[in-house]
């Protein structure tokens, strides 16, 4: 059906940007496959071990932007040993060798060494954007290399990484000729920063729209920086501690008034609550507010702040806001789309800062809410049913009850019905995390109703293999399934082995799966890597197949067992 010349088709493809859609388009016919692959510029690889760097380059020689994810999600919670893998260097090496014109690199949960950053900075002349989320393995020396060598750097975005801080003025390594910065996020850096170099950098970056500072930047330095960048749209303060009676503080108040474009505010990594009034004047413009790293702000001060934020669409906050504070959010922030409530004291007992009441209030007051992460002390079925009725738009619903197997405290029933209501009502739900006391019944509901579900996180839930089977059979779009401490075993694992090739990955830890079960699965499915993480030499490979496996991670792959697996990881 090729009535159009290739250039026309290529032009049409230029409007198709979503990865899923481009994948679909490439399957239509050989000709479209070829055109698509030669014109693809942005490549997303959800599991860096699913394909080799050479394979990516062979198929997409014109790629400019690469997104890579490494470790499994549960690595965030210390469930995956360090040295598990997810190493960046081979990718940079391969790309450098084949002279790919890489311009953007986005990484999540990968091990990034200083050598790889240095190689990156020297190999790609037009490199523009580096975004590292939850990565580790690098120091400020690597950042210095990027600063010094990437002449057209626009974006350096470091989110929640573990960065080793060395002596050195890495910020000063940005040459005087570097004036292209648009986004600079340093919030996760722990060490001191050369403040005057930072100020000069900001001063010569007229396009700077997003700036997030680290804790080492005090309030008076913030004021000087803001004077140079009144055009900022996204600001992350560093330390926000000062004597409210001082000159410096008053100067800051005046400077902030000039920053009329700020829509997104975060930081407050150290905060004196009495200083918060300085930002009240800009609150009415805010669409995004992240106070989740701000320690010790009293609920009342938070409320005073929130009351000015009528346009808020995204709010990340600590649970010291309390149910009462969430009520204020509900009545003030009618545009709210995303809410995350983090625990200020994760191990605190009886610290009932937020309960189901806060969530119900939010659901009643914020009709546009679609993304939720909520840590709380307790939840009831009635509350969840009410939330489901009020808000059927959820695409992401993550509920974490701090006591992982707590039942409904009013009825002492499991929370099956509550979550069931959520999945039944929210037809566009793509991501779900469960907690609380849960039986197989909740999985029956999920299998029945959660048709769009792509990612499911299960912990301490279910009674039998039936639970897992309901999910595997029912959720046709499931891509990532991660389970810990639940009684699912070989029967569930092996019932439908083909399913896993339709998914990105499966994680099961502290379940009932045995070594024999894993071996069977691995034997039947060569397109899967079935990895056993064997810490403390718990499993003897030659021994009993009936032994339970502590941690199993399996994922589909085109390239077979990985060669960089450490000795405690066995690929069966």
């Amino acid at each position, binding site marked *: 059906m090729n009535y159009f010349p290739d250039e026309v088709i290529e032009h049409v493809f230029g409007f198709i940007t979503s990865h899923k859609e481009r994948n679909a388009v490439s399957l239509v016919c050989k000709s479209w496959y070829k055109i698509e692959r030669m014109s693809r510029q942005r490549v997303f690889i959800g599991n860096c071990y699913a394909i080799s760097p050479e394979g990516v380059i062979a198929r997409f020689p014109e790629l400019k932007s690469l997104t890579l994810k490494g470790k499994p999600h549960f690595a965030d*919670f210390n469930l995956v040993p*360090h040295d598990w893998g997810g190493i960046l260097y081979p990718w940079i090496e391969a790309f450098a060798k084949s002279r790919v014109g890489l311009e953007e690199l986005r990484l999540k949960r990968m091990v990034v060494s200083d050598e790889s950053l240095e190689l990156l900075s020297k190999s790609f002349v037009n490199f523009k954007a580096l975004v590292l989320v939850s990565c580790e393995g690098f120091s400020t020396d690597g950042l210095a290399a990027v600063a010094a060598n990437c002449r057209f750097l626009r974006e350096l975005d470091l989110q929640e990484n573990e960065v080793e801080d060395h002596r050195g003025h890495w910020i000063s390594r940005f040459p005087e000729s570097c004036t292209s910065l648009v986004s600079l996020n340093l919030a996760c850096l722990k060490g001191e920063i050369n403040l005057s170099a930072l100020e000069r950098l900001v001063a010569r970056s007229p396009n700077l729209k997003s700036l997030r500072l680290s804790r080492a930047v005090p309030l008076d330095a913030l004021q000087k920086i803001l004077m140079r960048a009144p055009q900022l749209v996204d600001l992350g303060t560093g330390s926000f501690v000062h004597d409210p009676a001082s000159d410096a503080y008053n100067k800051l108040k005046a400077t902030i008034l000039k920053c009329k474009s700020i829509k997104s505010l975060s930081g407050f990594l150290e905060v004196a609550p009495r200083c918060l009034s300085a930002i009240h004047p800009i609150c009415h413009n805010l669409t995004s507010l992240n106070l989740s*790293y701000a320690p*010790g702000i009293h609920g009342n001060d938070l409320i005073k702040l929130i009351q000015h934020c009528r346009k808020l669409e995204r709010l990340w906050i600590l649970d010291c806001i309390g149910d009462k504070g969430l009520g204020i959010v509900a009545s003030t922030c009618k545009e709210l789309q995303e809410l995350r409530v983090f625990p200020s004291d994760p*191990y605190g007992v009886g610290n009932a800062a937020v309960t189901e009441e806060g969530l119900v209030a939010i659901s009643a007051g914020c009709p546009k809410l679609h993304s939720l992460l909520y840590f709380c002390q307790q939840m009831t079925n009635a509350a969840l049913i009410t939330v489901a009725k009020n808000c059927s738009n959820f695409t992401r619903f993550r509920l974490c009850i701090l*006591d992982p197997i707590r039942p409904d405290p009013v009825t002492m029933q499991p929370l099956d019905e509550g979550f069931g209501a959520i999945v039944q009502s929210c037809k566009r739900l793509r991501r779900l995390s469960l907690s609380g006391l849960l039986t197989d019944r909740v999985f029956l509901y999920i299998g029945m109703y959660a048709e769009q579900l792509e990612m499911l996180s299960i912990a301490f839930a279910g009674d039998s293999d039936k639970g897992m089977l309901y999910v595997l059979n029912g959720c046709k779009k499931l891509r990532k399934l991660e389970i810990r*401490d639940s009684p699912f075993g070989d029967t569930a694992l092996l019932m439908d082995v083909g399913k896993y090739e339709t998914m990105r990955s499966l994680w099961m830890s502290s379940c009932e799966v045995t070594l024999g079960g894993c071996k069977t699965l691995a034997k039947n499915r060569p397109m899967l890597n079935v990895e056993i993480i064997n810490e403390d030499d718990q499993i003897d490979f030659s021994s009993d197949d009936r032994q339970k496996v502590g941690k199993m991670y399996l994922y589909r792959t085109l390239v077979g067992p990985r060669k960089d697996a450490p000795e405690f990881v066995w690929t069966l």
Partner: protein
Amino acid sequence: MSASGSVSTVSRDDNLVLSSEDSSSPDESDLELGLGLSLGGNCGFKLQQQPASGAQYARIFTAKDFPSSSLSSSSSSLSRTNHASAGSKRSADSVANAASSWLFAFTLLANPKFRTYASWGILGILCTILIDMGPTASQVVGWPPIRAYRRNSMANQAKSVATEEYNSMIEKHKRKNGVVEKTTNGSNKNNGTSRTRTSLFVKVNMDGIPIGRKVDLGTHSCYETLAQTLEDMFHRPTTTITGMRSSIQEHDTRVEATRRSKLLDGTSDFVLTYEDKEGDWMLVGDVPWGMFLGSVKRLRIMRTSEATGLAPRLQESSGRQGNKPI
């Protein structure tokens, strides 16, 4: 040209967009759910989900919470990784749990419907469980699911809630004046490797001082530095922000050993002891550091005179330096 089936399977696989195979229809037989007093397993209850790690939680025990495998808690066929996580003991909960369990048992027995053989069995199990429980193993690895980065940040920030911000502002003004100052020296990691240090905060109490402290064992790599830190902490008791700030700095640096600590060599009036996971009080310094980290729950600086049953060297040298508290 029709969409040809000759598009190679390579490309299909390549896209990782595989058509899902037809799955078997879901089992729709009746679920045997819910709480029933059916006889099964080795206790009278239908077994509810057992938290596989065997840890206890702060909650009211319900009937569903009596797992059979807690009776055989010694058989650790389930993996238990030993990541140091920021710990706070919840010992109060074990009392609460015990109380509520008994309450539940009596409620059960009060109801004639439940006065069966099974419920006496439950009572027996309760006894076994309560005896078995001991000190609450309050931390489950990786729960609550908070990113390690955030967890570490919060642990460090907990100390920086200053009641007198003005003092701390003065402090910072002096030190940070646009000049690069290196207080953190690449020291959040173990030497050379890129390991992330996880916090392990434990309580420290000293005999004679009513208010305790907390120390982050994760910042230390040997007994010397720990004892050093403790000596400084309790020798120079301070409630000013200056003191708090300096202890904050310590938590961001690897403490380096400078001199042999008096707490460790027995020349002091006090000895350093710790409570281990089994609830026993032990003298600090006997086992390798790593093993110590894995079993310590809290520390106590104990008067030597109270430390009966310890090696003779300590009893000999007690009273030698009576002037200094440590």
